[in-house]
């Protein structure tokens, strides 16, 4: 089957953080309008909308959420489809939009991701997020998401000698990157001592090992490559889209120190793009917890298994080093409005490949990558992008 080449022609996002002044519909409208204005779409028909959100039903009591987005973006009556894959909802929505354009079904597609998380108490948000794991056999027993990632961290430390300081360094790096991002929830750098001294949430993970509860939205506009230059001088081509699944329950897996879905999706994406991990200049990985970034950079193939912590400590993942990881600040520093995250990753990579990332610009960035995980790894979706000029 011949697939069309697909480009990102417009991007936009809200600032991530606690938006007590804005509800879900205001957030998606702001991000969506910014993306549409960025794409200079005036007078052009938008054919379809794909929206990623994880838990609107639990967090704001609202289902049927993508019809609501189309409504508040003034896009009725175009088809509007919700995609849910826990924390990977945004990335999987992007993949649905990509497939719709690549297949020829639609030309101009808007992909949005959003979550409004601060309208409920934090403990209720934790229960809603727990639904990303196995409700009946993990959350029922008292395993929160920090606990599930702590179980992975403990085992990684046991098998590979990974140190708590190496986990902490992920947070230090990502907060530093976030301090250069005006959209980030946290704009202050933090020290290793601050991270190591923060309150224990689920040993060995501390407060600063965990991504925050956030509100926010992000959006991208997709078009067939042959139409892209109508809208932008700097199209960013999506050269690979890959997705994989794994068991919902952590305890059903053979290994707790790798995410099989990441390995499968990343391998497939590199095959589709005809590149190797070493060709990637900048990558947004899913660092919902610091251990998640260490496993991601190993499972994608940037570093050998068990060496991710040391590589991080040695500065190999810092801005403009061996491989620039999470220039936006990641989920840790930029914030994690769950459904928005996968789309935000694509927004950041687009800015990087266009050379519009300001103080956090990766020099001569040509190939970028996004890695978005649902739950404790039951979904992983990976995209590879290339500057198209």
């Amino acid at each position, binding site marked *: 089957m011949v697939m069309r080449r697909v480009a990102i022609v417009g991007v936009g996002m809200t600032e991530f953080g606690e938006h007590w002044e804005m509800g879900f519909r205001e957030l998606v409208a702001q991000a969506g309008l910014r993306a549409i204005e960025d794409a200079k779409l005036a007078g052009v028909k938008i054919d379809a909308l794909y929206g990623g959100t994880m838990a609107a039903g639990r967090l704001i009591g609202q289902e049927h959420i993508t019809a609501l987005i189309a409504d508040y973006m003034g896009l009725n009556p175009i088809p509007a489809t919700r995609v849910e894959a826990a924390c990977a909802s945004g990335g999987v929505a992007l993949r649905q939009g990509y497939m719709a354009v690549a297949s020829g079904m639609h030309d101009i597609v808007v992909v949005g991701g959003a979550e409004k998380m601060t309208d409920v108490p934090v403990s209720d948000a934790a229960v809603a997020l727990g639904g990303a794991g196995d*409700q009946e056999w993990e959350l029922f027993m008292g*395993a929160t998401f920090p606990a599930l990632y702590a179980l992975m961290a*403990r085992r990684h430390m046991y098998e590979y000698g990974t140190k708590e300081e190496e986990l902490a360094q992920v947070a230090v790096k990502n907060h530093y990157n976030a301090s250069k991002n005006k959209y980030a929830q946290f704009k202050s750098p933090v020290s290793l001592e601050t991270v190591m001294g923060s309150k224990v949430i*689920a040993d060995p993970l501390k407060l600063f090992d965990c991504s925050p509860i956030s509100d926010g939205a992000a959006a991208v506009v997709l078009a067939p490559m042959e139409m892209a230059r109508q809208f932008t001088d700097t199209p960013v081509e999506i050269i690979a889209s890959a997705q994989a699944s794994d068991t919902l329950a952590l*305890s059903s897996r053979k290994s707790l120190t790798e995410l099989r879905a990441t390995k499968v999706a990343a391998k497939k994406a590199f095959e589709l793009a005809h590149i190797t991990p070493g060709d990637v200049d900048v990558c947004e990985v899913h660092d919902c917890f610091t251990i998640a970034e260490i496993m991601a950079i190993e499972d994608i193939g940037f570093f050998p298994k068990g060496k991710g912590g040391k590589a991080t400590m040695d500065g190999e993942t810092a801005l403009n080093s061996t491989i620039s990881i999470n220039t936006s600040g990641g989920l840790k520093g930029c914030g994690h409005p769950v459904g928005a995250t996968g789309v935000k990753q694509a927004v950041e990579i687009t800015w990087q490949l266009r050379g519009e990332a300001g103080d956090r610009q990766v020099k001569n960035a040509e190939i970028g990558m996004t890695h978005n995980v649902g739950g404790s790894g039951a979904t992983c979706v990976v995209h590879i992008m290339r500057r198209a000029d």
Partner: protein
Amino acid sequence: MTGTGLALTWRRIPERYNLIGSRCENCGEAFFPVRTICPNCRRRGRIKREAFSGNGKIYSYTFVTSPPTGFELEAPYIMAVIELEEGAKVTAQLVDTDYEKVKIGAPVKMVFRKIQEEGKEGLIHYGFKFKVVD
């Protein structure tokens, strides 16, 4: 409060009270919780229910200090992944055990405990936890 509800609680009693899992007689792999389709053998699989012994060892663990809604009275508590002697792994709390004795590889056995209760007049949910065997 999750994984609760009257019919669900009744339906899960064998697995939660007595650690009833399943095993595929075709490939021999043990599963917990119960599966109806073997992921290795699929249509060739022959899944049978099996009562697991409750003996195992700690595969990984964490000390939870920030509990979710419904576990406020339990906190702080120890969560662990237990590797059962039958080969399947389960996620459960560790109780009646000093934290110093909690190590990867430490032998454990299943105990029957209260897991959650839904307020003063709601259902009380029971099930398995584990303790380190001296």
